[in-house]
């Protein structure tokens, strides 16, 4: 395009700016785009960070999955989650005048609000699938209830995301059944994955002052109330797969603390990889 290619080492590469759908920016709800309250913004940040961290993890499977088709399946799930994260972080940013990119690329580890489950490493395919099962069953129950939120933007995001996480749940369920009922080796890995993953499930259902305040106004869903429906779905899947949750010596509950910015050793490297390009070239677009 320009004759002076030297000015820009990479030439004039530009992609049409991606615009969020109207319901995600709150245009339909508030006319000019709804601005989140401080509490709603913090809540949206938690949900957005859950989605973005999980998406980043799943992206690492691309070109490494057992088959090309599974590369595509996990990649598609990751893209769905990035869509949810964009909407939620965009909304969270309206409270403080920050963009979704500001929140994704310019926050350090203690400022991230995702639960520990989402930052746990991919491990082998069985570990990834087990994390997907716990995450997607939780998200289906959460978004189904959040779709009735009195906060119009959160309700719209939840309603739109629900269909997608419902597919993620189906994908995870199908693989749990196949790994558990496959070979001795796949079943051994599936059992190990459940043992390793389940300690991080409990944190998803922790209540705190923020969600209690938001629940009083029917903005948020009280996490503890999701536990029962979550367990019912998980129990049914595990029963069909003839698997059991860890008990006795192998069972423990991780401390958690992601909602307050305390994280396991896995989040730092993940953020470093995700943020390095944006931080090396601030404001760049491609």
């Amino acid at each position: 395009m320009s004759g002076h290619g030297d000015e820009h080492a990479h030439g004039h590469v530009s992609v049409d700016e991606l615009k969020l759908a109207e319901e995600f920016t709150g245009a339909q709800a508030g006319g000019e785009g709804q601005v989140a309250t401080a509490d709603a913004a913090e809540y949206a940040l938690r949900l957005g960070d859950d989605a973005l961290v999980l998406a980043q993890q799943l992206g690492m499977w691309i070109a490494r999955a057992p088959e090309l088709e599974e590369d595509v399946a996990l990649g598609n799930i990751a893209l769905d989650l990035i869509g949810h994260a964009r909407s939620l972080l965009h909304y969270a940013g309206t409270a403080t005048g920050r963009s979704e990119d500001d929140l994704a690329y310019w926050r350090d580890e203690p400022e991230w609000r995702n639960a520990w489950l989402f930052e746990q490493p991919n491990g082998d395919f069985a570990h990834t699938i087990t994390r997907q099962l716990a995450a997607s069953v939780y998200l289906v129950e959460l978004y189904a209830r959040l779709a009735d939120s009195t906060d119009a933007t959160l309700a719209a995001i939840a309603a739109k995301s629900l269909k997608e996480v419902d597919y993620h749940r189906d994908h995870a369920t199908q693989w749990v059944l196949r790994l558990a009922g496959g070979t001795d080796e796949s079943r051994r890995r599936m059992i190990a994955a459940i043992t390793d993953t389940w300690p991080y499930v409990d944190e998803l259902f922790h209540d705190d002052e923020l969600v209690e305040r938001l629940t009083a106004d029917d903005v948020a869903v009280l996490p503890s109330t999701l536990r029962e429906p979550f367990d019912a779905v998980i129990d049914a899947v595990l029963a069909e797969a003839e698997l059991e949750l860890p008990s006795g010596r192998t069972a423990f509950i991780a401390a958690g603390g992601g909602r307050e910015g305390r994280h396991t050793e896995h989040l730092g490297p993940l953020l470093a990889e995700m943020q390095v390009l944006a931080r090396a070239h601030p404001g760049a677009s491609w």
Partner: protein
Amino acid sequence: MSTPGETGTEAWPLWEVFVRANRGLSHVHVGSLHAPDPDMAVRNARDLYTRRGEGISIWVVPAEAITTSDPDAKGAFFESPAGKNYRHAVYYTKSEGVKHL
């Protein structure tokens, strides 16, 4: 079928995918994919071929279940209609007084 993982070169079976774009249209062959079983083949097809709203219905068929015509017998199979224009409806002139044709 052999035990998965027994050999390094083993791959999932191949499936042919047919997608129907709209009610009233027929399923059209769109491509093929690998999957361990029919249920996963439908899901993989959904991810590979219907992400952009291309269809409302998917069929998958094991590729090995399809019997094909012999590419080397093309002449005998497909060239005999040459010169037989009378096999096309347009070869005939419409009789007077026939409506809706």
